């Protein structure tokens, strides 16, 4: 893994992406953030560190993940769809890439405890997993509402030895879990590392987490070259905080022929108040340590987000995405709950793959962009979709959405 940054999006200074990013934190955390920046920079230039990370990714997480030519799905979506199978990673999502990197850094800093926030529980499970592997103490903050939506993941984390703290303040979802994790960190920073799970938060997190997720795009690029003899026409990913998206986009940023699409959670629709689309339906603001796009009211109070997918149910987005939106390099669109669930079912029925509801947003997006890409290219486009996670954790939500466990026949469309 290399530490070179693409000049078009390199943080200008102190973790700024244009007017976004930066550090909006209490002074008490600055020393820890500076230490983390220094240790991380030094580690990425240390072959021993990058070798150990590569070895873990290969032997423990199961990388490289497959790039799968989804033929039956392609017929349905009007594009040749290649699925980047992050769902096949150990623990079932892309989150493990980042967590292994940060766990190695935790050890390098001599800290013995990690904390994490989690929405769907995928990052929490990944953090608990790395904590077990590295013999670290681990506390995961999770909104009470999410502990109910994702009860299975709570059990997984506890089985792995982590302490799961249900957060009962505010909207009782990911945003409040993050508030609680920050409160913990301010008082424990001396011996605790906060493993932020996405590309949000104060510098260096957005850059560091992106670099740990870059492996997705780097592999995809090579695999596409091998499979197609050229690069794909487009790359699609779902965006909550945006770590799987930036991970697959990053190595394509300078390939201007490759269109990049981020699909936000549109909930009931961006024209309603019940959505989680920070770019499509929000405005510039500061939340959780960085300036980015935020769902907020006229007074700057954070608005509650809504998405059927716990992992996308967050009112902010990583600052680099805000910048990529502003420069126009990536197009961000919203996908509703309904569209995502349809896409989820379609992948199940055509390919025998059950995706996470988060990832289903990216699949649904392909349907909306395929016609214009076809028109522009004059042929069937080749689209890579980052299948960021598997759907086991979402079975309860899916069962109730599709009415799969009632006594009446389950054969709804």
């Amino acid at each position, binding site marked *: 893994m290399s530490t070179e940054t693409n000049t078009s999006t390199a943080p200008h200074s102190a973790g700024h992406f244009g007017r976004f990013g930066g550090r*909006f934190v*209490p*002074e*008490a955390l600055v020393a*820890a953030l500076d230490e983390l920046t220094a240790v991380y920079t030094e580690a990425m230039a240390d072959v021993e560190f990058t070798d150990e990370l590569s070895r873990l990714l290969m032997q423990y997480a199961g990388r490289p993940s497959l790039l799968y030519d989804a033929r039956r799905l392609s017929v349905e979506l009007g594009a040749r769809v290649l699925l980047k199978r992050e769902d096949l990673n150990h623990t079932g999502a892309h989150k493990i890439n980042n967590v292994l990197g940060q766990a190695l850094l935790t050890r390098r800093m001599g800290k013995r405890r990690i904390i994490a926030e989690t929405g769907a529980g995928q990052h929490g499970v990944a953090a608990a997993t790395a904590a077990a592997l590295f013999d670290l103490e681990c506390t995961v903050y999770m909104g009470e509402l999410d502990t109910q939506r994702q009860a299975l993941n709570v059990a997984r984390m506890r089985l792995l030895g982590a302490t799961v703290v249900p957060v009962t303040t505010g909207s009782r979802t990911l945003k409040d879990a993050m*508030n609680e994790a*920050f409160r913990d960190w301010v008082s424990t920073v001396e011996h605790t590392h906060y493993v932020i799970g996405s590309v949000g938060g104060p510098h260096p997190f957005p850059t560091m987490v992106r670099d740990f997720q870059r492996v997705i795009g780097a592999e995809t690029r090579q695999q596409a070259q091998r499979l197609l003899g050229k690069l794909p026409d487009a790359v699609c990913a779902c965006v909550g905080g945006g770590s799987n998206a930036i991970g697959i986009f990053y190595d394509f940023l300078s390939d201007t022929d490759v269109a990049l699409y981020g699909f936000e959670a549109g909930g009931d629709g961006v024209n309603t108040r019940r959505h989680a689309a920070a770019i499509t339906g929000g405005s510039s603001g500061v939340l959780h340590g960085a300036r980015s796009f935020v769902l907020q009211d006229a007074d*700057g109070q954070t608005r509650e987000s809504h998405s059927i997918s716990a992992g996308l149910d967050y009112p902010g987005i990583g600052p680099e995405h805000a910048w990529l939106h502003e420069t126009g390099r990536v197009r961000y669109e919203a996908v509703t709950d309904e569209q995502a669930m349809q896409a989820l079912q379609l992948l199940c029925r055509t390919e025998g793959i059950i995706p996470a509801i988060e990832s289903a947003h990216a699949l649904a997006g392909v349907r909306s962009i395929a016609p214009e890409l076809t028109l522009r290219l004059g042929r069937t486009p080749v689209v890579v979709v980052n299948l960021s996670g598997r759907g086991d954790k979402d079975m309860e939500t899916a069962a109730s959405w599709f009415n799969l466990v009632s006594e009446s026949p389950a054969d709804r469309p």
Partner: protein
Amino acid sequence: MSVREVFASAAAEHRSALIGYLPVGFPNVAESIAAMRTMVAAGADIVEVGVPYSDPVIDGPTIQSAVEIALRAGTRVRDVFAAVEAIAEAGATPMVMSYWNPIERYGVAEFARALSFSGGAGLITPDLLPEEATEWIAASDKYQLDRVFLVAPSSTQARLVSTAAACRGFVYAASVMGATGARDQLSNAAPALARRVRAVTDLPVGVGLGVSNGKQAAQVASYADGVIVGSALVSCLLDASDRDSGQQALHELVVDLAEGVRARP
């Protein structure tokens, strides 16, 4: 009185200044302003008017509860200006304390202008670092407002120097590594931090670390120019069974604290 005059006159009386925090709109705008008047009457020199914010990541359960109540009651950012006017009228020095996003959303220059016109002395910004504050530094210069950034026990020497240099009015030494809240045992990091700040600036040093009674205030007053109290004041109102007993408890606590800052050992 300006913030500088408050500290100068306290020093002339060989005591520390008493700085009390309450969020505006808790439990509603009118009662919060009445409570701030009570604090002034009982001896607070500076009142920090808190702007309620939906994601108070630096605050412990007491202040979280209070601002949640304030927001549910429909409190708006602009309500701080009424509180600021009332405090000035009652004879104390009003400052505002706010997380950054409400200020940025209001418009930094517009906020500074409105704060200055309502008689506010300045702004305390717990999650804004001087390096991100270019716009606020310009606005506070233009409207001659004090700007108070925080320092912490973990601040390096270089950051103490640069942060103190960016401050005007006083330097806020947040002496506990952790969220806000009253504490039985005071931090032993506080005297050292106050000493370190003094070594790099002539500005007064205000110390906040969970003080909840006059005895603790006296202890802090022995090494700080200003004693900052927040959660304990909020608790008076939060724990009271009715409005009058809350105001009564608040009055008694502020009197006790005001005696404390005059009784430094």
